């Protein structure tokens, strides 16, 4: 009797749920992130009420703090710091399109039809 040839089993696929998670380490991480978010929110408010500081400087400072805040949420809470290459590619395209969108807007700011009265 001839031996039946059986197909080799497929290689085990990585299972998303197999990544080890430690609840206590997440609790510590969350405490740190929340404390920093509280501090950054407070500093944004403080900056907005600073006297003798020009509006452009205030806006730049406040948005810089907001970017730090956003990095914390995206990087640590959304796990973007350890994400797959494909997700980074999707986000890179998104960033390019958003920059294009903002560039169009900023470019249009002073683009008036001839004869338009401006203040």
């Amino acid at each position: 009797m001839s031996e039946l040839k059986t197909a080799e089993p497929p290689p085990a696929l990585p299972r998303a749920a197999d990544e080890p998670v430690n609840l206590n380490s997440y609790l510590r991480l969350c405490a740190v992130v929340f404390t920093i978010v509280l501090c950054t929110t407070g500093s944004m408010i403080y900056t907005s009420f600073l006297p003798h500081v020009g509006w452009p400087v205030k806006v730049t400072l406040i948005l810089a703090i907001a970017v730090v805040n956003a990095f914390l949420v995206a990087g640590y809470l959304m796990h973007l710091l350890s994400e797959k290459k494909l997700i980074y590619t999707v986000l890179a395209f998104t960033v390019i399109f958003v920059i294009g969108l903002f560039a169009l807007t900023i470019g249009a700011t002073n683009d008036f039809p001839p004869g338009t009265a401006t203040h």
Partner: protein
Amino acid sequence: MDIPYTIEARPDTGVYNAKLGIWLFLASEVMLFGGLFSAYILLRVGAAPDDWPHGWLDVPLGAVNTVILALSAITTLLAWAACKVRQFGKFKFFHGCTILLGLSFLCIHLYEYHDEWTHYEIRLTNGQFADGHLLEQSKDFDLAKKTGTVTLDGRIVENHADLMDLRNPRVPPAKPRELTVAAADIQKMDNYSPRHNTFTAIYFTITGLHGLHVLAGTLVISYFWGTGSRLWRRDPERFTNRIEVSGLFWHFVDLVWIFLFPVLYLT
């Protein structure tokens, strides 16, 4: 029929299908809110001097909402982590907290909307402006027939610019008092609704859209907390992935607010 790659990662993408799907959806959401943010910039930069409101919104309430959303993002992450370590009780607790925090955010936002909707600006026939919250209208009040009176809790100013920049150190702080204005003295009267000016229009558009996202996220999370959690008994890994996907959406909603708060309330 089994739906493929609900748990295990696709070999070519490296992630399970729902995760790739939610990231593509979030990318489209970035474009949606990006369009509105760029519209805000265009309107803000194009506004005439002294014609863009400053300090109109309640900063403490906005700050409380920022903290609430940040806290809810954390409870969402902890709910997912609890699923990962197979502690369903803790998942229920953390996700329950997220639902309550989401509802608190919406309640505070609705309170702010109500505050703006009952806030009136009245252009008087003598050129002055009355501004404040509506206390009452007389029963015979009719602006077209010029009959009756309205009572506001507010103030009267000479220049419209004094109403625009509430943080201007040159303008003395407002001391609200009860004002009764006859309809015959009113030239124009409208509340701080979206049609009031460009700022209120873009404010209600962006925050309204964001609020709808918060509501949608709360509904989805409530489903997974309630009847949707039956999947946990049949397929805990798939359920965990669903929690991760809904959590990514919730974090995105938090991210949008991180920029909305400073842009609308502080700058």
